[in-house]
């Protein structure tokens, strides 16, 4: 699989997870009366229009910044995703350094 396909695959997987959580938070928001039906429709429209077009991790991160700015109930969810992504990036960075070290030692 080439680099572009890997990135696309990774973005798609991330997007699917975010869609899932958007629905879960929406359900909770409806239950807690923090969001009404018209707002829920707007959220769904917004998510599909913006996250649906995301083609890179940066695009997804930007969406995760924008969503809680519009609807606060998504704040925790977005922070969680951003934290996960950051942690993943860090792991990858560490792994890259380890690989370089390994190559240097050999």
């Amino acid at each position, binding site marked *: 699989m080439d680099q572009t396909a890997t990135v696309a695959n990774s973005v798609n997987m991330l997007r699917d997870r975010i*869609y899932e959580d958007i629905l879960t938070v*929406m*359900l909770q928001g*409806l239950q807690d*009366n923090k969001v009404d039906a018209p707002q829920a429709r707007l959220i769904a429209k917004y998510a*599909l229009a913006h996250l649906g077009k995301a083609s890179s991790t940066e695009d997804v991160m930007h969406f995760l910044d924008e969503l809680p700015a519009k609807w606060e109930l998504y704040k925790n969810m977005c922070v969680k995703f951003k934290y996960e992504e950051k942690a993943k990036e860090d792991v990858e960075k560490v792994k890259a350094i380890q690989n370089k070290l390994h190559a240097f030692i050999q």
Partner: protein
Amino acid sequence: MAAPGLPSADNRPVGLEVVVGMKNVPKATEKAFGLNKGQIDLMKEITKAKAEKAKDEDVLGRIANGEKNKPKYDSSNIQQDIARFGGGSGNVNGEGKAIQSPNAEEKQINRFEQAKKTGEQISSVMFYMDLLKIQNAGGNVNEEITRLKDRNPSFKALGVETLPLLQAKAQEAMLTDPTIGDILGQLSNLPPGDIAKQKAVFEDMVFTDQRFRDTLSANLHAVHEKILKLGEMTPEGKAKLATDTENAKKTLDDKAARITDAVSRAYKGGGSGLPKETTNDEVVEILKASNNESDFKRNLAGKMGIVNYGAVAEYLRIEKELAGLNKQLEGNLNDTPVEKTIERNTGNTKTTTRETTHKDGSQRKMLDDKAEAINKRIVELKGINNFDTDLATYRSVSDFVDSPGVKSEITEGISSSRELNTLSAKTAPEGKNISTNLDTRLSREDDLLAEMKTVIGKSLAEVWKKDQGEADTLNAEIYEKRIAEAGSEMEKKLIIAEATRYVDFNASTKETTIHGDNIMEGIQLLTLEDQGVMLEMARVMELTTDAKVKAIFAKTPDGKKSIYTPAQQIEQVNKIFDKIKENDKTNKTNNFEVLEKMMKNHGSEYRQKMYGSYLTMDAYLKEGVNGHLLRIGRKIKYEGSRRSMWEMVSGDGNKTVNYDQLNQIYKYCEPDITEALEQNSAANNFMKRMEAKGMAGNPGLLKKLAWLLFIVLGLGSGLGAAGVIPGLSAGGALGAAGGAAAAGGLGFGALKVGEAASGG
């Protein structure tokens, strides 16, 4: 934060999940939870979608569009559903295939077979569409077929190994639906017998439309729910029925075996024994077909090779009769005297004497005649080919059946067979005795069968109807936008007239009105070609009056001839234009200049509108196929004289226009048809596909098709488009939203407005 005055999440009563699971939530309950109906409905929607493991992105899409989650039919259920037909006596076998009870009555088998045929036809369409989607997305169809064969009994039951075989089944299923076959067949203007081309239309228009697949699934799910309500026997009832049936079958088999042995012995014994042996199955068959020993005798005789059974039976009957007659006649030969006491009146005295009389001669003669007739008939019967052999066979069969050891076996065998019949009828829902409610059950099954048989057509119609509404609404919105953006009051009047004067769609009532009289006045003006179009525009822009326009086409007092010849009519038009110019000079206005500009910019589209509306009206009034297509998904009313086109257009001078004029108008407007079709990418693609499907060799047919498209798409009439031929949009790259945009693209100046609509 909770809405003011409503309980917060923390002090709300527990059990919200119960509320979400309720079909109807009472207002009081909503209030108790501090939620409104919209919120609860949405929660139900999300909860259900999650439970069904629907794709989250799709669920968000439905929420965004305000669509409710349509229940879907699980295609693997089809065999189980089929098995419920036929009084509930059926079942699915180890392979998941529906099977009917071997002892079911004919009427039960009939329903079961109908359900099997229809159910498998529907499932072939669903499976084919699913596989086609995989193929079009570049997936591995053969791998999916293998998977389905392993895991889906309903697919396996279809017995297809390849996509082309499934395609053939799906196309056949479409052809059996009278609604779809009729509409698509007519739409493509193909003769009903041209099945190959009709199938090509299915491929282009129906099988790739995912919305149709979803609607079919939802509608089938609704039928499935009703099928489940038919009920089935309780497990205990089924078990008892199975035991009783098995016992009766065992007895029948046992008796049949004994009778078969007896037949064999009678055959091998020689003498007057039977001329043939029978198999066990043959004896079972005879027992099942016999109500009594007499039936058995006749049926066995048939198996023994008797050809002239009727003659033999008649012979035996009259032979017996003859014996009786002969006995009587023998007695009469002795002429035994009979003494009788006879009273006679002779004058005033009555005398009584005893006399001896003899048998009446006439009666003897009658007996003689009868005996003679019987003897004659016996000679005739004996003359029949193989009669003696058949008679001998029958006698041996009769002796065999009446023999003490065999007779009881036959009696018991027939009794077991009849018991099996009775048991087969005990297949009522909930194990009740069938005799009281089988017919009720079968009647309910008939209703469901009718639903199943039309579910494909119904689903397609629903998809089209939705498209139609969207297309018409969009067209109305486009006109509204154009009116708002009109550069001048006169342009505004022109667009309003275009939108409302001929064929008018009311976006709020969703009703289309065809203004017949206005359209026919327009048609009269089209006989004057550009001059007529310009005059019509002058009229709607209120630069001249109705009276002046109508005066041009005035008739002689007898109503048979126009006052003016066409050349004089043109002169009259020019006079009206001159008057407008004169008024401009007087009033220091530039109305004629504006009119000319409008003619230049909008003349072509206005002409199309006038002609397109005429074709629409024609289709509506004729109530033929085109009229039917126009009506799909629309509320249409007609205003104006309800004269048929035959009355309005004929060779008579007193009609609105004559045939020559109509042909002239057609020639004048034909470029519009071509242009309109070319401008509409969906229609254009459709024409190209039709050409590719082998219609290129028939330019006449293509021309007709172009006409048909022009009419049913409402090109120029202001009617929407995509809904009439959904495949045009849905089958192409446009998709549902694109279909609506394409509809917008059908109007005049539509490309730019259509783009704006789709871009928004």
